């Protein structure tokens, strides 16, 4: 004979433990399914760690002009010894610049990706769910944003607002949201006709509640996909702007290092150790973004694999 009061419910901490295990399993679902995405995640987290601990990783102030013991400018030193990657034409430590550049790159990449995806998701949701005039207006706005040439726009923006990495973020946010907005709008238009949305309406739930509680979680995975693509885009753009000389002059970024190397004719002197590391870093982080998005894509659209 069983009594209801003898049933032992799992304790709170046991539940929490199970929750953590479940979360961990889900977090590792990507690498188990797709090793490429796992590599992407590893690269990305390596850069995140470098950016966080940049202050203790650098050997010199990346902006300081260095001199040797004879008080001569320590310029164009080859890698090795005190300077892991050598020094620049104006006597700055390349390794320290590279490490510090990670911060700028990630800051621009992540904030730009966040703003692109936030704007894109919200506009896509509203446009897709409410339809009608709202949809028409927002989508024509998207057409306009898509029609503006990207790089010239960011350059003009930098000219107007003064050079700063935030202009790059601002420009990217302003011009890149339509892509994610359109995809999310299409997804929402299909979701809003699903039975569970109708069911929520019959329970008396309001439009905003349905939109944010029931539809948003269903499109979030798409948002993440676009975010991982936008990170790469933002870093590339920042590098391009800096390389063209419209970047901020008071911080160190990989694009700026390339610009400096180019202007100081590093290629002519064969200083490969100067411009190849930042170039590789840019490629690595952009590729990481694409690898992660590819992994996501396979989880979102498993049929693509066949």
């Amino acid at each position, binding site marked *: 004979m069983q009594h209801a009061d003898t049933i032992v419910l799992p304790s709170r901490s046991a539940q929490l433990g199970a929750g953590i295990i479940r979360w961990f399993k889900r977090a590792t679902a990507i690498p188990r399914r797709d090793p490429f995405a796992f590599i992407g995640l590893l690269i990305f987290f390596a850069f995140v760690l470098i950016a966080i601990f940049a202050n203790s990783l650098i050997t010199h102030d990346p902006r300081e002009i260095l001199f040797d013991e004879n008080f001569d400018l320590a310029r164009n030193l080859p890698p090795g010894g005190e300077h892991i990657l050598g020094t620049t034409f104006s006597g700055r430590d390349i390794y320290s610049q590279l490490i510090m550049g990670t911060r700028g790159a990630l800051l621009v990449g992540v904030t730009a990706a966040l703003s692109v995806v936030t704007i894109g998701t919200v506009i896509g949701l509203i446009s897709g769910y409410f339809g009608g005039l709202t949809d028409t207006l927002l989508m024509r706005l998207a057409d306009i944003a898509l029609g503006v040439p990207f790089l010239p726009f960011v350059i003009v923006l930098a000219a107007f607002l003064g050079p700063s990495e935030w202009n790059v973020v601002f420009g990217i946010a302003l011009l890149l949201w339509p892509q994610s907005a359109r995809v999310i709008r299409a997804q929402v238009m299909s979701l809003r006709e*699903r*039975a*569970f949305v*109708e*069911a*929520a*309406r*019959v*329970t*008396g*739930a309001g439009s905003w*509640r349905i939109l944010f*509680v*029931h539809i948003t*979680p*269903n499109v979030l995975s798409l948002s993440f996909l676009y975010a991982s693509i936008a990170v790469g885009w933002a870093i590339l753009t920042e590098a391009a702007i800096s390389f063209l000389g419209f970047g901020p002059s008071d911080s160190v970024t990989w694009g700026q290092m390339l610009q400096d190397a180019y202007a100081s004719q590093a290629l002519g002197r064969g200083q490969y150790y100067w411009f190849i590391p930042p170039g590789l870093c840019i490629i690595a982080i952009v590729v990481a973004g694409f690898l992660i998005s590819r992994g996501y894509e396979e989880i979102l659209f498993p049929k693509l694999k066949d």
Partner: protein
Amino acid sequence: MLLEVRDLVIDYRATRGRVRAVDGVSFDVPAGAVVGVVGESGCGKTTAVRAITRVMPSSAVFASGSITLDGIDLVPLSEREMKKYLWRDIAYVPQSAMNALDPVWRVGRQIEEVLVDRGGMDRKAARTRAEELFAMVGLESKRLGDYPHQFSGGMRQRASIALGLALSPKLVIADEPVTALDVVIQRQVLDTFTELQKQLNLSVILVTHDISVVAYVCDYVVVMYAGKVIESGPVAEVLDNPAHPYTMGLYNAFPELGGGDRELSPIEGSPPDLLDPPKGCRFRARCPFAIEACVSDPPEHQVSAGHLAYCHRALEAGALRETAIKTATWVGVASE
């Protein structure tokens, strides 16, 4: 009478004009009774009952009619006022209830959401109530922590019913609640449903195209065809003595749950185009008993207490039934 629907007219705006999907439908739901609304696809049965909740596709237009719930006329209410009645008094178990649960939230969370948001309960009370509801529909309470995709079809249907019963509504509208399930599970879910209905003294509108489901669970039946009610009354009365040829045909076209080896005969042809409905009886093109009088609107005929039929030949129903049982009667009728 808990619910009275009178002369309900619902149109759909279509590119080629207005489609009158529901054309002057009236029916009653007595308290504690199960009323089956039956008819083939596109006859307006879902549209008619959805109008009660007022959650309709944007192309639907409420043209006229009155809907009275427990003495309150629902039609003139504003959206905001109407929301007060939704789910607390009128619950809806939707068509394709299989997909009526949000795939990204745990089932328990969705039931609690309704309890907290619409029922004003706190989280803890909602949790207890959700467990209670799951027990009522025969699901283990530990399954509250599962996602809808981890449920089987029958379990999802049970969860939808639990969700419908959450706030102890006066009226539950169940739209094709068991259509997507196989017959064994259908029977189990229907049994649970009937048991709960008796236990809680629920009033239910059950929409279905399956007349055997009506025979199995309903007290009253409303038979619809092409936007109109063609016959209504107590289930035993209507199914034993159908007075409208369509009901006779519908009954012949379905196998009985109780067995029996009678031959099944389909009703040939398809329902009329509602953009341009025919004058008079809408069933006449498919009716083996059509006469010239059928070109005019059929009169209301009271067959017995509470049993109404809309047919010119309702008085001869007894003789027609004899003929309708023969399969040959239904062959080659809809020749056009």
